[in-house]
């Protein structure tokens, strides 16, 4: 019996183990499903959406949600549902790519800082300087400098959260660096690059994954806030923040123009947050039994 359970445990890979823990968290699983649905919607947006995102119809303006237009139409007679569906592409793409940018930039800086004590002070003090500016402000300044476009918005949001990633990666690598297997890898003549890529990075991933999920939620909020303020994606593109900013003028007549895009942002961000929480709990070795 004892042998059997041991065998069973041995067959668990790391991913399997995490999934096993993750499954127990009902909220997190629901969040994951919601996220998958949004990803499918984003990928197949042109197929799913009943209308194009900029199909104007002057005879059907400002129609309240009804059977034909489940989310109503806006002041130009565009179907809000179709715009929300197309808009999911922007939010998910910005969230995903902005975090990718900050993982790569922050990861390189963090690994360098942790691995080369000479660089540590220079890199981390510079990161501190950037962290002294609130993230949103930094992103605003970067967008102002680069000009507003989809790519620049992603770059601005990604760069502005790079210092946080550099910190997490550095801390995580520092704790991995002292482990015996790293010493062993060096003892058998592994180069710095080899040790970092083969041993340090895989073993420092856990906190990074959690940080990435939660950062994606924050990136989506920042990007939509920037678009809302007019620094991000411009009309007529159906970005949710930009839709809110356009619908704001009609708050007295058309409540759906301010409620629905915000709900869409909230649902995606909520899903990311519960998935992030779930991952953190299942990756935390203290909670493992």
């Amino acid at each position: 019996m004892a042998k059997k359970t041991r065998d069973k445990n041995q067959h668990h890979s790391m991913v399997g183990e995490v999934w096993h823990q993750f499954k127990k968290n009902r909220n997190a699983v629901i969040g994951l499903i919601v996220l998958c649905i949004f990803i499918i919607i984003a990928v197949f947006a042109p197929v799913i959406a009943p209308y194009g995102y900029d199909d104007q119809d002057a005879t059907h303006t400002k129609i309240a949600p009804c059977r034909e237009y489940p989310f109503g139409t806006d002041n130009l007679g565009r179907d809000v549902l179709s715009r929300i569906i197309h808009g999911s592409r922007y939010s998910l793409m910005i969230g995903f790519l902005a975090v990718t940018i900050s993982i790569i930039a922050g990861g390189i800086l963090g690994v360098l800082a942790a691995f080369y004590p000479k660089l540590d002070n220079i890199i981390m003090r510079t990161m501190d300087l950037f962290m002294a500016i609130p993230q949103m402000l930094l992103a605003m300044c970067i967008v102002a400098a680069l000009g507003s476009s989809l790519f620049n918005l992603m770059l601005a949001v990604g760069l502005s959260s790079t210092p946080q990633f550099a910190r997490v990666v550095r801390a995580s690598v520092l704790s991995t660096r002292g482990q015996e297997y790293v010493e062993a890898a060096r003892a058998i003549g592994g180069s710095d690059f080899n040790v970092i890529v083969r041993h340090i990075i895989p073993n420092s991933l856990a906190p990074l994954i959690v940080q990435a999920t939660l950062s994606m939620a924050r990136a989506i909020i920042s990007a939509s806030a920037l678009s809302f303020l007019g620094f991000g994606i411009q009309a007529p593109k159906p970005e949710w923040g930009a839709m809110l900013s356009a619908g704001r003028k009609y708050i007295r007549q058309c409540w759906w123009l301010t409620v629905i895009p915000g709900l869409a942002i909230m649902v995606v961000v909520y899903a990311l947050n519960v998935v992030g929480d779930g991952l953190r709990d299942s990756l935390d070795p203290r909670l493992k039994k």
Partner: protein
Amino acid sequence: MLKFIIKRLLWIIPVLFGVAIIVFTILYFSPGDPALQALGDNASPEAIEAFNKDMGLDGTYFDRLVRLVTGLCKGDLGKSYKTRTPVINELVTKFKVTLRISAYAIILGIILGIFFGIISALYQNSIWDTLSTGVALFGISMPMFWQGLMLILLFSVILNWLPPSGYGTWQQMIMPVVALGVNSSATIMRTTRSSMLEVMRQDYIRTAKAKGQKFSTIVIRHALHNAMIPIITVIGLQLSALLAGSIVTEVIFSISGVGRYLVDSMTARDYAAVQGCVILIAFVSAILNLIVDIIYTFIDPRMKTMYESAGVKLNPKKLAKAAEVSNG
């Protein structure tokens, strides 16, 4: 301890110069000519030249950087391109507004956050716990600007109870304060809950219970006191988040504070004003961080010894490390 405070205050100076250089450099590469923006497209070349000279826009990158840094030493943040008056004057009046709203918001956030955090930690897995953790998760998932819009929709448009915009009367204060405060309270609540849950499992809590201590005393004196360090850290982080959050909130509620000034200046390409706002906000967050670090020592005397031992040598490396440790 005093030595530690002075040293941290001195440490703010290089940070501020660093921030100023970063912001200046980013904005230096921004497209658009402030002179054309301010004077109109048909301005004569002489007028543009005079404007650039007056605003300190002539010269190379390094000339302007040196001018900025020397100005900063004298407490001069430059002149606004739009109004041609010193930025600092405008900032001071606007900052009072932002500060007042943020202060009320953080007080609201602390009260709600700690109260519900304790409740849900004490009655873990009860209906109250499920409810308040659920609401808190929604709270952190809601974009602050949308929350503001929803408040306007509910209380101004539908119920017609509160004015949708402006600043001055207490009715006008309610919605911006709630919009800002609820968001922070959600984060504070989550931290309070997890920190309290950890403390409530400790042996000394069992001892206190066993000796028949009153329940309220156990919760407040024994548990909350020991759970406070992460909570204070989060409150400190929330203070900076509030300053940034005030940008959207002020735009939505048409409050003329620093946040709205920043957005307006950014739109008008009034980069001197933008620079001033960013430097001011960085300065205020640095001071707030210092205050948080000092508060730690009141809650956990061990921190005091750590600061003092770090302060004996004039070593910024150790000081920064101590600050890092205390920041979590």
